[in-house]
Structures are given as C-alpha cells and as structure tokens.
C-alpha cells in the first residue's frame, strides 16, 4: 500500500499539477493560434511576467502588513491577471497588429513574437535579477497530509497544488460556459472557424481579438504564478514550458480549447509517468517473480534529465500520424 501512496504522490498528483499548468498555458496559445493564426512564442514568457507581477504585488502587500488565510501571492494573482491581460493587449497592438494590417505572412508574426519573447526575457532579468525567489515572505507553505487507509505513508498535497487544481477546474468550466453561451464566445468560435465569413456577418473582430488576448493573458499569469508558488519563481521559468505547451496545443488540435486541456493533461501525465520509477510499484510482488528474474532498483522509461524529450516525442508522433490532433483541429 505504501508503494501505491508513493505512486499517487509522485506520479498522479505531480502529473495533475504540471498538466494543469500546461493546460492553462495551452488554452491561450490554441485560441491565439485559431483566431489570429500564428504560433505565439512569447506565451511562456507572458507566464513569467505574470508571475513576477504577482511577486511584486505580494511583496507590497507583505510590506503593508497584510495577512490572509491563503498565500498572499494567490491574492496578488488576481490583479496580476488583469495587468498581464492589459499587457497582452498592448503587445498585440504594438508588435503584432501592424503585421496583420499589412497582410504579412504569418511566419513574420511568429518571428516578431520571438522578438517579443527576447524582450520580455531581457526585461524580467534586468529588473528581477537572475536568481530564484520564493513566493512566500513571512508565510509558510501549508502541506496537507491525508491518511490513506492501510498505508503508513500519507497522501501529500501542498496548498498551492490544491489551489491550482481548484482554479483550473473553475477556469475550465467558466471558459466552457463563456464559449458556448455568451455572444462574444460564440463570435470567437465563429472567427476561429472562418474569419472572412465571421466578418461579413457583422462580428466585431476587434473585440474578438481583445477577448482572445484577455483570456490568454489572464490564464498565463495564473499558471505562471501558481507554478512558482508550488516551486520557486525563476526568471527562466518559461524555458521548460514552451515546448510542452506547444506540444499540448498540437496534440489537442489547433484552435480547440478543450483539446488544449486534454493535450496539457496528456503531456503532463506522460512526462511524470515517463520519469517515474516503476520498480517501486513492482516491489510488493518481489517474491512472486521467478528466481531468474531480478528486479532492478530503477525502471524508468526516460532519465529525469531527458524529460524534455517526452513532449517532443509525442509531438512528432502526432505530426506523423494525426496532424489534426485528437480533437480534429486545423492543420495549418
């Protein structure tokens, strides 16, 4: 039973946590890809910027002697989401819209987004330094230990993990209601399906574009903040996120928000399962193996250093066998 608890702690919960982060990032990227038709490479850095804004607000609140039952950074996350959304709209207006208006090839916009990536990275490190920071000042990270029947170990869940999972569920439900019920949400789906037709029917494309950036920016800020709450805030947070998020988008099908969630979870779980030491789970059955079979101490599909190869491998498989992704997205 101890081994099962170990499996749940190390594989299921961490898979769920990192999968939620990927999913929140991938929703934004897939909407931008579907509606504005370009791969937004600066998205992971938008997450870092969002996390840094949260950090600054949190530090201000802590300096003002504010205290709350949840981590301060979680409270700071909500204004940070608004700020990041505004930043995203400004970035679009300044750096991407001129190319769209000129009718440039989407590749040029992708390249512009690489330029924006570098600028955001440079600014974050210029003002935030290069060291890692804790998102807690004078607070402790709460850890919940839930006893598991028949096992000596407890299930372990930290407060940020719980908040992240709850936030992801609420965000996904809100997004689903928004996309299927509201006028603007329906307009977004219409533009994603056929931009020309949508414009002819009188949909205000400007509002649709703004909404896309608002959704992308808020979710990016939330994902970045909660990931750094769970681990630490690093200026190169975005480094390991970009590839898994794009893999999640393509696996889920471009332009499909539900696909992005499924893709994010798939990538998250694949990563943790690939590096998980499966020998632990086999250990209880040690005595029932034949004599010639010696159980190795470590059975993992991929060494931890090569975690990055997992999303890439899944991406390649999807590109070969099903370029539309699971949810039949666009192929561009």
């Amino acid at each position, binding site marked *: 039973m101890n081994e099962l608890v170990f499996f749940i702690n190390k594989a299921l919960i961490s898979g769920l946590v990192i999968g939620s982060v990927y999913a929140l990032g991938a929703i934004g990227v897939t909407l931008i890809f579907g509606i504005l038709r370009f791969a937004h490479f600066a998205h992971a850095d938008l997450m870092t910027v969002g996390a840094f804004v949260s950090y600054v607000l949190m530090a201000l609140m802590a300096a003002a002697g504010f205290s709350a039952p949840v981590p301060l950074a979680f409270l700071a996350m909500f204004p940070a989401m608004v700020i990041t959304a505004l930043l995203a709209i400004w970035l679009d207006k300044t750096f991407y819209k001129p190319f769209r208006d000129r009718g440039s090839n989407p*590749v040029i916009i*992708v390249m512009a987004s*690489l330029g924006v990536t570098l*600028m*955001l990275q*440079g*600014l974050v490190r210029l003002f935030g330094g290069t060291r890692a920071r804790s998102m807690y000042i004078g607070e402790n990270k709460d850890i919940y230990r839930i006893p598991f029947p028949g096992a000596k170990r407890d299930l372990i869940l930290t407060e940020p993990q719980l908040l992240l999972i709850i936030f992801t569920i609420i965000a996904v439900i809100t997004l689903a209601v928004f996309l299927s019920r509201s006028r603007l949400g329906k307009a977004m789906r219409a533009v994603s399906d056929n931009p020309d037709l949508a414009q002819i029917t009188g949909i205000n494309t400007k509002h649709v574009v703004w909404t896309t950036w608002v959704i992308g920016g808020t979710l990016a800020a939330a994902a970045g903040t909660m990931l750094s709450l769970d681990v630490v805030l690093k200026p190169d947070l975005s480094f390991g996120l970009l590839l898994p998020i794009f893999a999640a988008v393509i696996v889920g099908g471009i332009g499909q928000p539900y696909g992005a969630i499924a893709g994010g979870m798939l990538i998250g779980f694949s990563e943790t399962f690939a590096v998980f030491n499966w020998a632990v789970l086999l250990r209880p059955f040690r005595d029932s193996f034949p004599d010639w079979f010696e159980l190795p101490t470590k059975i993992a599909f991929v060494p931890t250093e090569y975690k990055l190869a997992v999303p*890439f491998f899944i991406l390649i498989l999807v*590109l070969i066998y099903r370029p539309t992704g699971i949810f039949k997205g666009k192929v561009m």
Partner: protein
Amino acid sequence: MSGSIFQKYARDFMLAGGLFVLILLILMLQGSAYTSRMLVEAACYAIIALGLTIQWGYAGLFNIGIMGFIAAGSFMFMFVSFPVNERFWNSAGPGMLVEPIVTLLIGVALIVAVRKLRMIPGWLRTPLTVIIFATTYLLVTAGIDPAAKVIESEAGFIGGFGLPVFVGWAAAGIIAGLIAWFAGRICLGLRSDYLAIATLGIAQIIKTFLKNADWLTNGTLTVSPLPWPVPKPIDGNFTEARSIYLALTAAFVIIIYMLLERAYHAPWGRMMRAIRDNEEAASSMGKDVNKRRLEIFVLGCILMGLGGAMLITFTGLFDPSGFIDLNHTFLIWVMVILGGTGNNRGAILGAILVYIIWVMSEPLALSLFDLVRVYGLDWFGWQAPGDLDSRALQMRVFVIGLTITLVLRFAPEGMLPERIRQD
C-alpha cells in the same frame, strides 16, 4: 538595369566600405590579436548565416534550432578529431559498448526493413515499428548505462579518433545534415510554424544530451584543447596563427558564397524561389515541393554544422553548456534579416557587422550600467543590486529582441534586399 557596376551595387560597396573602415578603426584601437580573433569568429558566423539565409531566404523555412545543429556539428568534430584517449581503449569500455551499438544497428535495420518491404501488410507496419523501436530503445539504454559508468570511472570519457581536422569538419556537416533530414522528413510538409516548434525541440534535446552524456562528451567538464587545422600560436604570438586561420575561414566563406550564388542563379535556385513565392503554383507545375525543401533544409543545416565546428575549433574548447539560444540562434537570425533576406552578400556583411556590434556591446553595457550604479548612488542614494553586472548583460537580450521586431516592421528587406532579376 543600366549604369556601371558601381551604380548597380552602390549599396553593397558602401556597406562593405563602411565595414572595412570600422574594422580598421577597431584594429587601431584594440590591436591586431583582438581584431583577428573577432574577424575569425565573424567569418564562422557568416558561414552559419549563409546556411540560414538559404533556408529562410531561398525557401522560406523557419528554423529556430540553429543552436542544435551547431552543437551537433561541434560535438561530431570533437569526437572525430580530438586525440585518441588511450585509457578508454585500454579499459573494459569498448567491449561493453559493442553490444548496444550492434543492437542499435540491428534495430535500425529492422525498422527500415519493416517500412520498406512490400510483403508486410500495411496495417502491420505501424505496430511492428513501435514494438521494434521500444525493444531496441530498452535494450540499448540497458546496455549503455553500465558501460557509461565504467567509462566515466576508468577513462573519463571516450575521447576522439584523432583524425585530421578537415575530416572532423566534414563529419560535423554530415551529422547536422542527417539530423536535418530526419526532422525535415516529418515537418516540411506542414506549415512553417510546425518546423519552428520542431527545430526548437530538437535543439534543446541535442543540448540536453550533450550536457548529460558525460561518457561520450565529457559533459560539463568540457573538452580542450581541440586541434587546429593550421599551426597553433607559439609563444603568445596570436596574430600570425590567427591570421592564417582567418585566411582559411575567409576562403571557406568565399567558396561557399560562390557555390551558393551559382545555385541561386541556376534553374534549381529559380525553382526554389518559385516554391517560396507560390507553393501551389510551383507544385501544379510538377515541382516536388517537399523534396526540394528537404534538400535546401539539409544543405543549410550542413553549413550550420560546419560553421559551428569551425567556431569551436578556433576557441579550442568544446563546452556543451556554452551553446545558448541567444548567441547561436537569435543572433544569427538578426544577422540574416538585418543583412537582407535572400541575399548572400547581405548575410555575410550582416554577420560581420552584427558580430562586431555584439562583441562591442558587452563592455558597452557593463560601462553603461556602471554609470547607472555610480550616479544612482550619488544623486538618489540608490543602492544597486549586487548582481548588476549579470543583469547588465541581459540588456543585450532585450536589444536583440527589439532589433528583430524593429527590422521586421520598418525594414523587412534588410540592408541589402534580394535582387529580383528584371529581364
């Protein structure tokens, strides 16, 4: 088009002349050892930039994994040309490596057989490939792990084969081309964004592998000194040795430039541009779009691998953690789009100019932030953070990003635009 050759190429001459004056100025200010080092590195970057300009300028391929191809080429050069490590060959390592290598070869042969043999029914191919792939992977990793431990403890790392430098450079190009061939086979049929994502991933994986496979690459312990194709500097007389090296790299740049120009004006180059400008039209004229793209992608990556190998040969140090996206991917993009997309002279001149600015910008940024530190304390009593110097260098990241967006927006054709032949 009329007028003398000077009128026709006025921009080229002005740019080259300006660069020449700039180099002379640096020569006077910084001395010949410094200038020759800078020029050699700029020439190596020019080769890499030529590789990118044919991918992007001739065929519109969006490669942001240049760093990976440079790293792969550099490793291959080290592996082929670094002196033989006797301790490895006398240890148990070589014997232990035979089994995984043979397994790998058998696995690859079986996969190729499954994909090509006609007698295997189509529905069976995919499951068979997956099974063979998984088994090979498990067997090879299971065989490599103990061998790696033995090698690391007994011999450090495998070492090289001690072959001549030019063989190593050729191997560098070949390995980069091979990787490009695999990547291109999968991604070139899709929209260019996919190629961007895939190349980004490949670059990261290659770097991770080189950093962690200590038994093969010596990992973060780095490998030096690497052999030179020309006599090494003796008694600190850098200028002479570096000048000979510079002559060699310059010869490479000129030969590659001439070959590429020929290809550009040949029917092959015309076909490439036709594909880039209108894919549908070209394919309806019977051109095999994906195959042509694969050709140019592989060719470009070969140049990147070669340029990367020449670069690390010159510095004499193979350090897997030294390959970073900023220096080895985005800097080269700036060189190409600033120099002029689709113009080989633009790529070379852009590479030299951008590299000079890049080298100069480091002391510039540091002294600028030193001023900030001094005056911040004097005027506002502002205590600068301790890591100000490392932050100052981040300014360069910002500037590279800004340059990319500004050039794309206000001068999308670069300094030397592509010449459209009008006749």
